[in-house]
């Protein structure tokens, strides 16, 4: 394992996979990311992140049973693993802790 280090884009992909829940595949994730963040990632970047996250064990891919794409091929879907959920949570906790550690005076603009 390479530790629980998570890139920014990888974290976004993980979160998007969570949002889409049972319909998370490459293009859907790209569209959702576009909607959420306003930037449009390359489809290859999305797939690369998915492969990397699966290698790290944060995502798990499975072939959709029954329903297929218009071209008659089974769809490969992704879902968060327990480890993936924990990693996203850790990331949020880290951010929250660091947010809380910032003194109030910073926000009130006291420093000028």
């Amino acid at each position, binding site marked *: 394992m390479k530790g629980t280090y998570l890139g920014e884009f990888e974290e976004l992909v993980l979160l998007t996979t969570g949002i889409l829940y049972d319909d998370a595949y*490459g293009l859907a994730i790209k569209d959702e990311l576009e909607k959420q963040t306003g930037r449009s990632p390359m489809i290859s970047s999305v797939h690369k992140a998915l492969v990397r996250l699966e290698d790290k064990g944060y995502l798990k891919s499975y072939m959709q049973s029954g329903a297929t794409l218009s071209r008659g*091929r089974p769809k490969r879907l992704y879902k968060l693993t327990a480890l993936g959920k924990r990693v996203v949570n850790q990331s949020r906790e880290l951010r929250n802790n660091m947010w809380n550690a910032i003194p109030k005076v910073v926000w009130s603009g006291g420093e000028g």
Partner: protein
Amino acid sequence: MNDRLPPLWIRRFFAWFCREELRDTVEDDLITLYSRKRRNMAAFKANIWYFFTVLTFLQPFALKRIQTNHLNPIDMFYNNLKIGIRFMQKHLIYSTINVLGLAVGLSAVILISLFIIDELSYDRFHTKGENIVRVTYKLETPNSTRQGAKLPFPLKGALESNYPEVINVARFYHWSGDTPLLAYGDQKHTEDGMYFGGLPHSIAFRPEPNSGL
């Protein structure tokens, strides 16, 4: 719907390099994106877009895994290497002595070989090189010992008349003064590292500059 499909050759190219597990899923995504493009784009432009998007998949994560033959000897070699390293870590002193001893021995052999090869490289060009001997002197005084090959001129006569086994004596003298001007006919030029030689005809002679010979 069929006219909305990207050119076959690009799709074949993609199928050629892409990994089996990813190929169908990625291509479905690509074709969906392509047909979206086609709604407000000329076929030509969309094809170019498709081609470059396919090119962005030329990355290690999407490429076919190269089949490596797991030959038994290779696996065995790695296993032996691992066992060797573990053994050395476990028996550190023993291994250090072992490796250092081997290094010292090997370097001694290499240095001795270099010396012997150099010594045997002299007079190879001569058919009777075995019989050519270099005369040196060793001068021991109470304070120091000097060694060299600078010998007096009359030694040639003394060697030839007193020692029957000496057939010929060659002597030469290194000009250590200023660079001399040499003249032959109407050619004149300077020459570094000049030797005066008194050589019997039977000995071909090749002095090397600065060899101290």
